[in-house]
């Protein structure tokens, strides 16, 4: 009897370069966008996705054949790929768009990812996509779901635990839902989106940073993938949240009551 071909796992992790979460956001005077000339880093949810892919390999050893990271963005996004490679991914794909191009929207990104997955078919295909549940810049939170829809794949969103059984071609994913935790079993291929509690991303160690410099990054353009990343939405206005008004001090209880009345607060009738 011929042994069944051992199917090894190929993982794709899409990552996005975003304004760093610690940066104080400033709205541009034209109210059409924010000041982007600030520190950027990898979208924190994507960092968790990369970490999870690397941990899967640590658990499953040789059963994980490859971990590829992909980003769509301006030339500087290559840094984000290097960070992912330093954390333990094997290779990168950079879909480069001009610095001045508007940020792509979830549908465009999902279509580009679909094209990438199609291209990878000849190299063994993709079995598992792990990606952030949302990017902290546009907070759209749609790309993973749209991708699963376009591919007609299973999806497990807001994951806080992932257990993959490569031989059975399935994964058990624990999801963070309103009422608590929900465990779902999905068939591969699968799209998983990560929630905060999934893991804590590692530091990039110096030897790995050095190694990452030698790992391959393939450069593509949207036209190589036959996708149009032109946004379909028009941003009308971006505004800052209202400034918090500080409190005041009162000298006596009477003054406090007077102020409360002034503010329209009345006692509850017993």
């Amino acid at each position, binding site marked *: 009897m011929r042994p069944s071909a051992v199917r090894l796992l190929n993982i794709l992790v899409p990552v996005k370069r975003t304004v*760093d*979460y*610690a940066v104080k956001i400033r709205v541009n005077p034209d109210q059409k966008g924010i000041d982007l000339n600030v*520190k950027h*880093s*990898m979208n*924190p949810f994507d*960092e968790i996705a990369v970490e999870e892919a690397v941990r899967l390999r640590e658990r499953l050893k040789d059963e994980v054949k490859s971990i590829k990271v992909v980003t769509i963005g301006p030339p500087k996004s290559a840094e984000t790929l290097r*960070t992912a490679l*330093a954390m333990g991914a094997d290779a990168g794909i950079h879909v480069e768009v001009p610095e001045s191009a508007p940020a792509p929207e979830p549908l465009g990104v999902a279509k580009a990812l679909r094209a990438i997955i199609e291209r990878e078919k000849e190299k063994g295909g993709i079995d598992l996509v792990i990606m952030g549940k949302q990017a902290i810049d546009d907070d759209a939170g749609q790309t993973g779901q749209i991708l699963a829809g376009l591919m007609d794949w299973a999806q497990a969103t807001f994951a806080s635990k992932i257990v993959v059984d490569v031989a059975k071609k399935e994964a058990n994913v624990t999801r963070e839902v309103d009422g608590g935790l929900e465990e779902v079993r999905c068939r591969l291929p699968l799209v998983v989106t990560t929630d905060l509690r999934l893991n*804590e*991303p*590692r*530091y*990039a*160690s*110096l*030897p790995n*940073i*050095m190694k990452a410099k030698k790992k391959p990054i393939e450069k593509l353009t949207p036209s190589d993938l036959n996708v149009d990343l032109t946004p379909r939405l028009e941003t009308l206005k971006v505004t800052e949240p209202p400034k918090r008004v500080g409190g005041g001090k009162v000298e006596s209880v009477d003054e406090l009551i007077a102020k409360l009345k002034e503010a329209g607060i009345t006692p509850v009738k017993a």
Partner: protein
Amino acid sequence: MFLVRSVSRTPVLRAPRRWAHSFPQLNSVTEHDLDYFRKILPPSAIITTLPPNPSPESELEPFNNDWMNKYHGKSTTVLKPRTTKEVSDIVKWCNDRHIGIVPQGGNTGLVGGSVPVKDELIISLANMSKVRSFDDVSGILVADAGCILQSLSDYLAPHNYVFPLDLGAKGSCQIGGNVSTNAGGLRLLRYGSLHGTVLGLEVVLPDGTVLDQLTSLRKDNTGYDLKQLFIGSEGTLGIVTGVSILTAPAPQATNNVMLALPKFENVLPLFKEVKRQLSEILSAFEFIDRRVYDLAIKHGQGRALDAEETEGAECFVLVETSGGNREHDEQKLNSLLESLMEADEPLINTGVLATSPAQFASLWAIREGLTEAVSKEGKPYKYDISVPLQKFQEVVDITREHLRSEGLMREGAVRHVVGYGHVGDGNLHLNVVADAYTPEVEAALEPFVYELVAKYNGSISAEHGIGVMKTHALHYSKNAVSIDWMKKIKQLFDPNGIINPGKVLP
């Protein structure tokens, strides 16, 4: 004096004995004095437990006790003047009446310099908290002494400047106190000490005269530089009421990296190499020995490096860069790390580079959490000393060996002897972690540590000052001639000995 020191056990207990002979004869604040203060100050600027309208004792507690609750004064009155003129009027009155004064800022000191020894009048500068001027071309800031360090940082941020001083207590400490104690802190390596960045001071002298040296000049070689006397004299020569200081352009990018070293001997060559390659963007170079790193991890301070990374490491170094151009800085840091990793005889085993602000903060948390980790492990005896860089490890090892030979390195006595500190500034924090504060451990440590420091021509107090805690040990770092001249200067400025009595000088 020697006798007093050898029989004393805790600062709280020994305090009254030590100054009994040198504390000047001073008067207490009376109702008559309050009548005068009421004429020059509004009621809200006076807190007193004296009749006719006494405030509860509890209102004075934060002024009479230091934040560690280690030193306790018995003052009856706190005044909170709003202007230099008011300070001057108060001080003049006190000088005429021989009433002792303790100038107080944020009261965040570690050596008891800002709380009364007895019942001196407390002058809190908290109500003098206005920025007087800021020039965003030269970066020169002139501010009242009572400005809180954090609020000055916040004031400067939109102008793209940073204060040249940063320390853990920034949310409470005041710039006047910082200057009076010559606070060191985390940015010293980069911006130098306050002796360099302070350009001018306004000081109320012990007779009430206002010494106005509040210039905004970078260069001014005209006679004696009197302001330097008030920087670090811990309020014993006068009360700083205004500060003119040179602030620095805000760095646009910061990075940090934690390096694991196979042996201590590599720290200095590494420091040289890091300085050479990073030059102007190097902003911190902190040394952490292996034992205290393990304590920090054990007590959950920051996230540990992978065990793989730390295997065989004898000590760690945290390097921080801050500069004006992110790409440029990262390129410099990367080529440094590359050359360190690829050297034929590498100085480092390995290391980690923070790739996000969360990791940046996490690496700093290990360093900044050491103090807390040490306190959680046991009762720490803390020595803030300056010694030549190459002696850092030696001081720690010799102290440990000494305790071992005294039979104290054992369960129930001393658990750990650890070291960490600002290599960049030659400042070592030697910490001895004991199970309890006991006379035998203290007797084994003091004056042993002070004598050891004196042997290396080091300083027994690198950045914490003398206050009341270390007056008895001043002579280990300053010779008799120096102390004699300090006393003459004190006598000259303050013949009645009213300003911050019992502090600094033995």
